[in-house]
């Protein structure tokens, strides 16, 4: 979505009219769900986080500085919402588990049952690896690898200096590699 359109929609939403919020929700829900799913490992929890994040975004729009980009601000709120949910889940004592429903794919997406089984097993290992590396490593990997953000955007979303993004990514990738090797994955 073009930033001028976003700014106009944000101005109209700031008056408290949610009708103008719909295009923003529809523009950001796809990538937002991908980020939240990567952080939470559960698509239904990710939808809840996304809904709550959009509600918080709408309520805080009157305070939003339109000179800033909307995207990174939205992802900041979504990230905080995911973190809150992870904390709540941990305090409930629930084990972090990857939802089996993540494996649901449209019919015919894989060419054979054997190929589907192999892909499913590989994804399972990756989710376990992501679960094992901790919140900080996981969130930067999700933003980079699942959503493809550039370093300046990652720095803004995570509220860290741009110069530390490469270093954080290096440590996160190393941690994931170690976690996957612990799970029996061999890299060259």
């Amino acid at each position: 979505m073009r930033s001028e359109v976003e700014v106009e929609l944000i101005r109209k939403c700031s008056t408290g009219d949610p009708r103008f919020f719909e295009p923003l929700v529809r523009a950001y829900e796809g990538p937002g769900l991908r980020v939240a799913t990567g952080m939470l490992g559960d698509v239904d929890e990710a939808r809840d986080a996304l809904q709550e994040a959009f509600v918080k975004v709408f309520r805080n729009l009157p305070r939003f500085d339109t000179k800033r980009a909307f995207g990174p601000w939205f992802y900041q709120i979504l990230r905080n919402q995911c973190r809150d949910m992870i904390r709540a889940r941990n305090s409930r004592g629930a084990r972090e588990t990857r939802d089996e429903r993540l494996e649901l794919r449209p019919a015919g997406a894989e060419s054979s049952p054997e190929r589907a089984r192999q892909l499913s097993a590989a994804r399972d290992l990756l989710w376990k690896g992501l679960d094992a590396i901790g919140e900080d490593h996981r969130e930067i990997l999700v933003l980079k690898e699942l959503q493809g953000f550039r370093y300046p955007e990652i720095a803004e979303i995570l509220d860290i200096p741009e110069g530390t993004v490469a270093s954080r990514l290096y440590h996160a990738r190393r941690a994931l590699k170690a976690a996957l090797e612990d799970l029996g994955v061999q890299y060259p």
Partner: protein
Amino acid sequence: MTSPVSNEDLMRYLDDELSAEERRRVEEAIQDSTELRRDLAIYRSMRLDLSELPGGHRHDRSVWGAVNRKLTRPVGWVLLVVGFVAWTGYGAWVFATSPANPVEKLAVGALVVGFLILLAATIFERLGEWKDDPYRDVER
């Protein structure tokens, strides 16, 4: 002889965040170092694996409906409660100051208060059930 390449340089190279000049320098170092080539191959392989994760493919069902409900319902509730309180208060005042027989007033008052108590109890009961309902967000 190329200058040493840091881990951060390698990340920026992998993520296409280097200037053309820096990129050339890192590429030269990669050519000269088996270790760097191996590291790069590992990170590229991991990137490919991660890019195939299916997270978020179920976004065909928009969250807009649920978000819209959460944004608009509180306004509706506030208006309903304000209206109810205003009409109840006005009705009570008209009823209390009317010249009707006190016994009739007491009987009608008991009916109204009883009805309101039952209504409030039912609302709180339903609210409690709704909070624990795991299927409340399931759309038909």
